[in-house]
Protein backbone atom coordinates (compact mmCIF):
# COMPACT_ATOMS: atom_id res chain seq x y z
CA UNK A 1 0.00 0.00 0.00
CA UNK A 2 2.72 2.43 1.01
CA UNK A 3 4.65 1.58 -2.11
CA UNK A 4 1.59 2.34 -4.21
CA UNK A 5 1.11 5.70 -2.48
CA UNK A 6 4.74 6.58 -3.12
CA UNK A 7 4.35 5.63 -6.78
CA UNK A 8 1.25 7.82 -7.11
CA UNK A 9 3.12 10.70 -5.55
CA UNK A 10 6.15 10.34 -7.81
CA UNK A 11 4.01 10.05 -10.91
CA UNK A 12 3.16 13.74 -11.12
CA UNK A 13 6.68 14.98 -10.53
CA UNK A 14 8.21 13.81 -13.77
CA UNK A 15 6.69 10.82 -15.58
CA UNK A 16 3.23 12.34 -15.98
CA UNK A 17 4.09 15.93 -15.22
CA UNK A 18 0.94 17.97 -15.95
CA UNK A 19 2.67 20.72 -17.92
CA UNK A 20 5.56 19.04 -19.69
CA UNK A 21 4.06 15.66 -20.49
CA UNK A 22 0.28 16.02 -20.36
CA UNK A 23 0.32 19.66 -21.60
CA UNK A 24 -2.72 20.72 -19.56
CA UNK A 25 -3.29 23.83 -17.48
CA UNK A 26 -1.52 25.99 -20.04
CA UNK A 27 -3.32 29.30 -19.46
CA UNK A 28 -1.97 30.04 -15.95
CA UNK A 29 1.39 28.51 -16.91
CA UNK A 30 1.89 31.12 -19.60
CA UNK A 31 0.07 34.05 -18.04
CA UNK A 32 1.41 34.36 -14.51
CA UNK A 33 5.01 33.26 -14.90
CA UNK A 34 6.43 36.74 -15.45
CA UNK A 35 7.95 36.81 -11.94
CA UNK A 36 8.98 34.00 -9.58
CA UNK A 37 6.70 35.33 -6.86
CA UNK A 38 3.63 35.11 -9.11
CA UNK A 39 4.60 31.67 -10.41
CA UNK A 40 5.10 30.28 -6.91
CA UNK A 41 1.85 31.80 -5.62
CA UNK A 42 -0.08 30.40 -8.56
CA UNK A 43 1.48 26.96 -8.04
CA UNK A 44 0.56 26.90 -4.36
CA UNK A 45 -2.99 28.17 -4.96
CA UNK A 46 -3.60 25.56 -7.66
CA UNK A 47 -2.11 22.80 -5.49
CA UNK A 48 -4.32 23.78 -2.58
CA UNK A 49 -7.48 23.62 -4.71
CA UNK A 50 -6.33 20.34 -6.27
CA UNK A 51 -5.59 18.66 -2.92
CA UNK A 52 -8.78 19.80 -1.17
CA UNK A 53 -11.07 18.90 -4.05
CA UNK A 54 -9.40 15.50 -4.53
CA UNK A 55 -9.93 14.76 -0.82
CA UNK A 56 -13.60 15.79 -0.90
CA UNK A 57 -14.37 14.01 -4.15
CA UNK A 58 -12.62 10.77 -3.19
CA UNK A 59 -14.57 10.80 0.09
CA UNK A 60 -17.93 11.38 -1.58
CA UNK A 61 -17.33 9.37 -4.76
CA UNK A 62 -20.03 6.80 -3.89
CA UNK A 63 -22.63 9.50 -3.22
CA UNK A 64 -22.17 11.43 -6.47
CA UNK A 65 -24.45 10.04 -9.21
CA UNK A 66 -22.54 9.10 -12.32
CA UNK A 67 -24.69 11.18 -14.68
CA UNK A 68 -24.09 14.49 -12.97
CA UNK A 69 -20.53 13.89 -11.83
CA UNK A 70 -18.88 16.58 -13.98
CA UNK A 71 -21.16 19.42 -12.79
CA UNK A 72 -20.75 18.20 -9.20
CA UNK A 73 -16.95 18.18 -9.55
CA UNK A 74 -16.98 21.69 -10.97
CA UNK A 75 -19.18 22.96 -8.14
CA UNK A 76 -16.86 21.47 -5.51
CA UNK A 77 -13.83 22.97 -7.27
CA UNK A 78 -15.53 26.37 -7.63
CA UNK A 79 -16.26 26.43 -3.90
CA UNK A 80 -12.61 25.90 -3.01
CA UNK A 81 -11.52 28.47 -5.59
CA UNK A 82 -13.86 31.08 -4.09
CA UNK A 83 -12.35 30.28 -0.69
CA UNK A 84 -8.78 30.66 -2.03
CA UNK A 85 -9.67 33.90 -3.78
CA UNK A 86 -11.09 35.52 -0.64
CA UNK A 87 -8.18 34.22 1.45
CA UNK A 88 -5.60 35.75 -0.90
CA UNK A 89 -7.52 39.03 -1.13
CA UNK A 90 -7.62 39.27 2.66
CA UNK A 91 -4.06 38.27 3.55
CA UNK A 92 -1.97 38.80 0.38
CA UNK A 93 -3.66 41.67 -1.48
CA UNK A 94 -0.58 42.38 -3.64
CA UNK A 95 -0.38 38.83 -4.96
CA UNK A 96 -4.15 38.71 -5.44
CA UNK A 97 -3.95 41.91 -7.48
CA UNK A 98 -1.15 40.71 -9.74
CA UNK A 99 -2.74 37.29 -10.36
CA UNK A 100 -6.18 38.94 -10.70
CA UNK A 101 -8.27 36.98 -13.20
CA UNK A 102 -6.21 33.81 -13.03
CA UNK A 103 -7.24 32.88 -9.48
CA UNK A 104 -10.94 32.46 -10.41
CA UNK A 105 -9.84 30.76 -13.62
CA UNK A 106 -8.43 27.86 -11.55
CA UNK A 107 -12.05 26.59 -11.74
CA UNK A 108 -11.60 25.73 -15.40
CA UNK A 109 -7.98 24.56 -15.15
CA UNK A 110 -8.14 21.24 -17.00
CA UNK A 111 -5.50 19.81 -14.64
CA UNK A 112 -7.88 19.92 -11.67
CA UNK A 113 -10.99 18.57 -13.37
CA UNK A 114 -8.86 16.00 -15.21
CA UNK A 115 -7.40 14.58 -11.99
CA UNK A 116 -10.86 14.31 -10.39
CA UNK A 117 -12.16 12.40 -13.38
CA UNK A 118 -9.08 10.23 -13.88
CA UNK A 119 -8.03 9.60 -10.30
CA UNK A 120 -9.98 10.90 -7.31
CA UNK A 121 -13.33 9.48 -8.41
CA UNK A 122 -11.88 5.97 -8.69
CA UNK A 123 -9.37 5.64 -5.87
CA UNK A 124 -9.28 5.66 -2.03
CA UNK A 125 -8.62 8.96 -0.26
CA UNK A 126 -5.06 8.15 0.80
CA UNK A 127 -3.97 7.52 -2.79
CA UNK A 128 -5.90 10.59 -3.98
CA UNK A 129 -3.96 12.77 -1.52
CA UNK A 130 -0.65 11.34 -2.77
CA UNK A 131 -1.67 11.93 -6.38
CA UNK A 132 -2.81 15.50 -5.67
CA UNK A 133 0.43 16.29 -3.80
CA UNK A 134 2.55 14.88 -6.61
CA UNK A 135 0.61 16.68 -9.34
CA UNK A 136 0.57 19.91 -7.34
CA UNK A 137 4.31 19.86 -6.76
CA UNK A 138 4.92 18.81 -10.36
CA UNK A 139 2.86 21.79 -11.55
CA UNK A 140 4.54 24.19 -9.12
CA UNK A 141 8.14 23.31 -9.93
CA UNK A 142 7.67 23.81 -13.66
CA UNK A 143 5.94 27.14 -12.98
CA UNK A 144 8.79 28.27 -10.70
CA UNK A 145 11.46 27.18 -13.19
CA UNK A 146 9.73 28.91 -16.08
CA UNK A 147 9.15 32.11 -14.12
CA UNK A 148 12.77 32.10 -12.89
CA UNK A 149 14.02 31.93 -16.48
CA UNK A 150 11.65 34.66 -17.60
CA UNK A 151 12.35 36.99 -14.68
CA UNK A 152 16.11 36.47 -14.92
CA UNK A 153 16.30 37.30 -18.62
CA UNK A 154 13.46 39.80 -18.65
CA UNK A 155 14.39 41.88 -15.61
CA UNK A 156 17.77 40.55 -14.48
CA UNK A 157 16.39 39.61 -11.07
CA UNK A 158 14.87 36.70 -9.13
CA UNK A 159 12.23 37.27 -6.43
CA UNK A 160 12.68 40.97 -7.19
CA UNK A 161 16.32 40.87 -6.07
CA UNK A 162 18.79 42.01 -8.72
CA UNK A 163 21.04 39.09 -9.71
CA UNK A 164 22.57 40.36 -12.89
CA UNK A 165 24.28 43.70 -12.36
CA UNK A 166 23.59 47.01 -13.98
CA UNK A 167 25.61 45.95 -17.04
CA UNK A 168 22.82 43.63 -18.05
CA UNK A 169 20.40 44.94 -20.67
CA UNK A 170 17.01 43.34 -19.82
CA UNK A 171 15.30 41.46 -22.66
CA UNK A 172 11.85 42.94 -22.17
CA UNK A 173 10.34 40.46 -24.62
CA UNK A 174 10.77 37.69 -22.01
CA UNK A 175 8.22 39.20 -19.61
CA UNK A 176 5.80 40.02 -22.43
CA UNK A 177 3.30 37.43 -23.76
CA UNK A 178 5.53 36.43 -26.69
CA UNK A 179 8.37 35.53 -24.31
CA UNK A 180 6.07 33.20 -22.40
CA UNK A 181 5.32 31.12 -25.49
CA UNK A 182 8.96 31.08 -26.62
CA UNK A 183 10.45 30.11 -23.27
CA UNK A 184 7.86 27.41 -22.56
CA UNK A 185 8.40 25.99 -26.05
CA UNK A 186 12.14 25.82 -25.55
CA UNK A 187 11.72 24.40 -22.03
CA UNK A 188 9.45 21.57 -23.23
CA UNK A 189 11.96 20.93 -26.04
CA UNK A 190 14.82 20.60 -23.54
CA UNK A 191 12.74 18.28 -21.34
CA UNK A 192 11.98 16.12 -24.38
CA UNK A 193 15.70 15.90 -25.08
CA UNK A 194 16.51 14.87 -21.50
CA UNK A 195 13.75 12.27 -21.64
CA UNK A 196 15.07 10.82 -24.88
CA UNK A 197 18.58 10.57 -23.44
CA UNK A 198 17.16 8.74 -20.40
CA UNK A 199 15.56 6.13 -22.59
Amino acid sequence: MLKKIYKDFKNGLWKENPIIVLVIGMCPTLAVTNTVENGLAMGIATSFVLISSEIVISLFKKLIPNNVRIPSFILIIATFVTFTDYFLKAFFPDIAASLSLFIPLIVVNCLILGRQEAFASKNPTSRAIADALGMGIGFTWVLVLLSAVRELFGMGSIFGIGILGSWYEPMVIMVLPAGAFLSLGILVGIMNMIKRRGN
Partner: protein
Amino acid sequence: MEEFRVVLLVFISTVLINNFILVKFLGICPFLGVSKQVETAFSMGLATTFVMTLTAAATWLINTYILEALNLPFLRYVSFIIVIASLVQFVEMFIRKSSPVLYKALGIFLPLITTNCAILGLALLIPLNGYNFITSVVFGLGAGIGFTLAIVLMAGLRETLEFGDVPETLQGVPITLILAGLMAMAFMGFSGLISI
Protein backbone atom coordinates in the same frame (compact mmCIF):
# COMPACT_ATOMS: atom_id res chain seq x y z
CA MET B 1 -22.84 58.66 -31.59
CA GLU B 2 -20.41 58.67 -28.69
CA GLU B 3 -21.88 55.34 -27.55
CA PHE B 4 -21.36 53.85 -31.00
CA ARG B 5 -17.73 55.00 -31.05
CA VAL B 6 -16.99 53.32 -27.70
CA VAL B 7 -18.62 50.08 -28.85
CA LEU B 8 -16.59 50.09 -32.06
CA LEU B 9 -13.35 50.73 -30.19
CA VAL B 10 -14.09 47.91 -27.72
CA PHE B 11 -14.70 45.59 -30.67
CA ILE B 12 -11.45 46.42 -32.49
CA SER B 13 -9.40 46.34 -29.33
CA THR B 14 -10.66 42.88 -28.28
CA VAL B 15 -10.12 41.40 -31.74
CA LEU B 16 -6.64 42.74 -32.43
CA ILE B 17 -4.94 44.54 -29.57
CA ASN B 18 -6.05 42.54 -26.54
CA ASN B 19 -6.47 39.29 -28.42
CA PHE B 20 -7.72 36.70 -25.91
CA ILE B 21 -5.28 33.99 -26.92
CA LEU B 22 -2.11 35.82 -27.84
CA VAL B 23 -2.16 38.68 -25.34
CA LYS B 24 -4.38 37.59 -22.45
CA PHE B 25 -3.54 33.85 -22.47
CA LEU B 26 -7.16 32.75 -22.31
CA GLY B 27 -8.17 29.63 -24.20
CA ILE B 28 -4.73 28.16 -24.79
CA CYS B 29 -5.93 24.55 -24.45
CA PRO B 30 -8.16 24.53 -27.56
CA PHE B 31 -5.62 26.78 -29.29
CA LEU B 32 -2.97 24.06 -28.96
CA GLY B 33 -5.33 21.10 -29.17
CA VAL B 34 -7.67 21.92 -32.06
CA SER B 35 -5.33 23.78 -34.41
CA LYS B 36 -4.13 20.95 -36.62
CA GLN B 37 -6.48 21.62 -39.55
CA VAL B 38 -7.92 24.90 -40.78
CA GLU B 39 -11.42 23.48 -41.21
CA THR B 40 -11.86 22.09 -37.70
CA ALA B 41 -10.18 25.15 -36.25
CA PHE B 42 -12.70 27.34 -38.03
CA SER B 43 -15.68 25.31 -36.77
CA MET B 44 -14.28 25.45 -33.24
CA GLY B 45 -13.85 29.20 -33.53
CA LEU B 46 -17.40 29.61 -34.80
CA ALA B 47 -18.91 27.53 -31.98
CA THR B 48 -16.83 29.38 -29.39
CA THR B 49 -17.84 32.78 -30.80
CA PHE B 50 -21.48 31.78 -30.58
CA VAL B 51 -21.20 30.61 -26.97
CA MET B 52 -19.13 33.65 -26.02
CA THR B 53 -21.71 36.12 -27.33
CA LEU B 54 -24.54 34.33 -25.51
CA THR B 55 -22.46 34.03 -22.34
CA ALA B 56 -21.68 37.74 -22.35
CA ALA B 57 -25.38 38.57 -22.52
CA ALA B 58 -26.52 35.96 -19.98
CA THR B 59 -23.85 36.62 -17.36
CA TRP B 60 -24.30 40.39 -17.65
CA LEU B 61 -28.01 40.01 -16.87
CA ILE B 62 -27.40 37.61 -13.99
CA ASN B 63 -24.61 39.67 -12.52
CA THR B 64 -26.51 42.94 -12.69
CA TYR B 65 -30.02 41.87 -11.76
CA ILE B 66 -29.34 38.98 -9.36
CA LEU B 67 -25.84 38.96 -7.92
CA GLU B 68 -25.31 42.70 -7.55
CA ALA B 69 -28.92 43.50 -6.74
CA LEU B 70 -28.95 40.96 -3.91
CA ASN B 71 -25.32 41.62 -2.92
CA LEU B 72 -24.05 38.09 -3.51
CA PRO B 73 -20.68 38.59 -5.24
CA PHE B 74 -19.17 35.48 -3.61
CA LEU B 75 -21.53 33.31 -5.67
CA ARG B 76 -20.12 34.75 -8.91
CA TYR B 77 -17.75 31.89 -9.89
CA VAL B 78 -20.20 29.16 -9.01
CA SER B 79 -23.15 30.77 -10.79
CA PHE B 80 -21.16 31.79 -13.89
CA ILE B 81 -19.80 28.30 -14.44
CA ILE B 82 -23.30 26.84 -14.10
CA VAL B 83 -24.64 29.35 -16.62
CA ILE B 84 -21.86 28.50 -19.07
CA ALA B 85 -22.28 24.75 -18.67
CA SER B 86 -26.03 24.92 -19.21
CA LEU B 87 -25.62 27.34 -22.12
CA VAL B 88 -23.22 24.96 -23.85
CA GLN B 89 -25.64 22.11 -23.23
CA PHE B 90 -28.49 24.20 -24.66
CA VAL B 91 -26.49 25.20 -27.74
CA GLU B 92 -25.59 21.56 -28.28
CA MET B 93 -29.24 20.47 -28.13
CA PHE B 94 -30.32 23.33 -30.37
CA ILE B 95 -27.72 22.61 -33.05
CA ARG B 96 -28.46 18.89 -32.95
CA LYS B 97 -32.14 19.56 -33.65
CA SER B 98 -31.80 22.40 -36.15
CA SER B 99 -28.70 21.48 -38.15
CA PRO B 100 -27.40 17.92 -37.88
CA VAL B 101 -24.66 18.68 -40.43
CA LEU B 102 -23.12 21.40 -38.29
CA TYR B 103 -23.57 19.21 -35.22
CA LYS B 104 -21.56 16.46 -36.86
CA ALA B 105 -18.83 18.88 -37.96
CA LEU B 106 -18.36 20.25 -34.44
CA GLY B 107 -18.58 16.87 -32.72
CA ILE B 108 -16.63 16.60 -29.50
CA PHE B 109 -15.56 20.25 -29.49
CA LEU B 110 -18.98 21.51 -28.41
CA PRO B 111 -19.08 20.04 -24.87
CA LEU B 112 -15.40 20.91 -24.41
CA ILE B 113 -16.21 24.61 -24.72
CA THR B 114 -17.41 24.54 -21.09
CA THR B 115 -13.87 24.13 -19.80
CA ASN B 116 -12.42 26.71 -22.19
CA CYS B 117 -11.08 29.33 -19.81
CA ALA B 118 -11.67 32.08 -22.36
CA ILE B 119 -15.42 31.81 -21.72
CA LEU B 120 -15.25 32.09 -17.94
CA GLY B 121 -12.55 34.73 -18.33
CA LEU B 122 -14.85 36.74 -20.55
CA ALA B 123 -17.71 36.45 -18.04
CA LEU B 124 -15.43 37.65 -15.23
CA LEU B 125 -13.85 40.47 -17.24
CA ILE B 126 -17.19 42.14 -17.97
CA PRO B 127 -17.96 43.16 -14.35
CA LEU B 128 -14.27 44.13 -13.91
CA ASN B 129 -14.43 46.47 -16.90
CA GLY B 130 -17.87 47.78 -15.97
CA TYR B 131 -19.39 47.49 -19.46
CA ASN B 132 -23.07 48.07 -20.14
CA PHE B 133 -25.27 45.47 -21.85
CA ILE B 134 -24.62 46.38 -25.51
CA THR B 135 -20.88 46.82 -24.96
CA SER B 136 -20.75 43.46 -23.15
CA VAL B 137 -22.35 41.64 -26.07
CA VAL B 138 -20.00 43.33 -28.53
CA PHE B 139 -17.09 42.47 -26.24
CA GLY B 140 -18.17 38.80 -26.31
CA LEU B 141 -18.50 38.85 -30.09
CA GLY B 142 -15.10 40.54 -30.50
CA ALA B 143 -13.42 38.07 -28.15
CA GLY B 144 -14.90 35.20 -30.16
CA ILE B 145 -13.77 36.65 -33.49
CA GLY B 146 -10.29 37.29 -32.08
CA PHE B 147 -10.19 33.68 -30.88
CA THR B 148 -11.25 32.42 -34.31
CA LEU B 149 -8.67 34.60 -36.04
CA ALA B 150 -5.80 33.34 -33.89
CA ILE B 151 -6.78 29.67 -34.04
CA VAL B 152 -7.34 29.69 -37.83
CA LEU B 153 -4.01 31.46 -38.46
CA MET B 154 -2.29 28.94 -36.22
CA ALA B 155 -3.91 26.01 -38.03
CA GLY B 156 -2.73 27.44 -41.36
CA LEU B 157 0.82 27.69 -40.06
CA ARG B 158 0.75 24.17 -38.68
CA GLU B 159 -0.59 22.74 -41.93
CA THR B 160 2.36 24.29 -43.75
CA LEU B 161 4.73 23.11 -41.06
CA GLU B 162 3.81 19.50 -41.85
CA PHE B 163 6.18 19.74 -44.82
CA GLY B 164 8.91 21.49 -42.84
CA ASP B 165 12.03 19.89 -41.42
CA VAL B 166 11.54 20.31 -37.65
CA PRO B 167 14.28 19.01 -35.31
CA GLU B 168 13.16 15.86 -33.57
CA THR B 169 13.17 17.27 -30.03
CA LEU B 170 11.04 20.25 -31.03
CA GLN B 171 8.33 18.27 -32.82
CA GLY B 172 4.78 18.56 -31.53
CA VAL B 173 4.12 20.88 -28.61
CA PRO B 174 7.44 22.82 -28.47
CA ILE B 175 7.38 24.01 -32.07
CA THR B 176 3.70 24.96 -31.73
CA LEU B 177 4.50 27.09 -28.70
CA ILE B 178 7.41 28.77 -30.48
CA LEU B 179 5.15 29.50 -33.45
CA ALA B 180 2.60 31.00 -31.07
CA GLY B 181 5.37 33.15 -29.62
CA LEU B 182 6.22 34.50 -33.07
CA MET B 183 2.52 35.18 -33.70
CA ALA B 184 2.25 37.01 -30.38
CA MET B 185 5.21 39.16 -31.44
CA ALA B 186 3.44 39.98 -34.68
CA PHE B 187 0.27 40.91 -32.79
CA MET B 188 2.30 43.24 -30.56
CA GLY B 189 2.50 45.44 -33.65
CA PHE B 190 -1.21 46.22 -33.20
CA SER B 191 -0.71 47.75 -29.74
CA GLY B 192 -1.09 51.51 -29.90
CA LEU B 193 -3.38 51.21 -32.92
CA ILE B 194 -6.15 52.93 -30.99
CA SER B 195 -6.53 54.14 -27.45
CA ILE B 196 -9.66 54.29 -25.34
